[in-house]
């Protein structure tokens, strides 16, 4: 088995008990962590000189309803270090009922719109987000369309002037 990457090694050293699982495949590192350590882990990834993850590449979510995974949601973060040229994927589980995780906007300003998109599409809230409202859909939209239990044929009410008539 090859040596674990510096990222996995350092995260394990630092946050041993709060890590649910780590794996590494084809050079891609994934760390699944407890929700309460999201902000400390992110701060560590960004601040540690050997890791230096200064770029949030993507932030999205997965609904595991059909796969019956518990808890139902996972929020997924992809970080990249422009200086070190390495990447890591962080996953944070979220409950089916009132899913909520901490916002990382204070660390990466770019997380702002991503978190709004995840709220819009999956209905996962971000604690501490400065402006958590829908970004792609409109305010009157009912439901969160990328949830697996959103009815595929559901019709939204028309909006705008004269929509009710």
């Amino acid at each position, binding site marked *: 088995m090859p040596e674990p990457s510096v990222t996995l090694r350092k995260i394990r050293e630092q946050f041993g008990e709060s890590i649910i699982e780590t794996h590494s495949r084809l050079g891609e590192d994934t760390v699944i962590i407890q929700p309460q350590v999201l902000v400390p882990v992110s701060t560590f990834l960004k601040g540690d000189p050997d890791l230096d993850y200064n770029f949030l590449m993507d932030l999205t979510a997965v609904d595991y309803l059909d796969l019956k995974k518990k808890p139902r949601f996972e929020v997924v973060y992809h970080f990249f270090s422009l200086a070190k040229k390495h990447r890591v994927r962080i996953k944070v589980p979220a409950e089916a009922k009132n899913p909520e995780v901490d916002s990382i906007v204070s660390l990466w300003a770019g997380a702002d719109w991503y978190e709004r998109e995840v709220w819009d599409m999956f209905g996962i809230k971000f604690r501490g987000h400065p402006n958590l409202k829908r970004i792609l*859909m*409109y305010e009157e*939209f009912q*439901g969160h*369309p990328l949830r697996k239990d*959103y009815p*595929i*044929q*559901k*019709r*939204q009410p*028309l*909006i*705008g*002037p*004269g*929509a009710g008539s």
Partner: protein
Amino acid sequence: MAESLENRERACYDALGKEKGNPRMMSQGFLTSKLEKAIGWARKYSLFQYPFVTACCGMEYMATAASHYDIDRFGAGFPRFSPRQADVLFVVGTISHKMAPVLKMVYEQMCDPKWVVAFGVCTCTGGFYDNYATVQGIDTIIPVDIYIPGCPPRPETVLDGLMKLQDKIQHSRQEF
């Protein structure tokens, strides 16, 4: 020589007049018609269109409008970018729920008489975008006169639709 040409011209006009049940009428320099019919004729050949272009169908709209297919041959070659100056609203491309109020407002800004063409299946029925974001046919928002199917419709189909619209204009009651 000049005189024989004139005679031939007159014979032509008389033949035309005979066909219309009114011999010699055209050679005398006038032509009778119904006012309503004349207005319909004028309206159908001077369509100012407002292209409301949102998606891929726009490419086919451009092809139809440009010189190769040349929509101007049908008297509809003059796109206006103010709805207040337009007669026919070409809705070209997918309409999302977020865009729907804008489309409705543009329609309401147009002066009467006005017509609406649904260009492409997206505007006719929502097309294959049977999903949470797309309006399932613009006729849920505004009245539609002509539906042009196709994803996207070929320029020939568009011209066919345009001729059907002209036919409809000619044969409808003219308000003036």
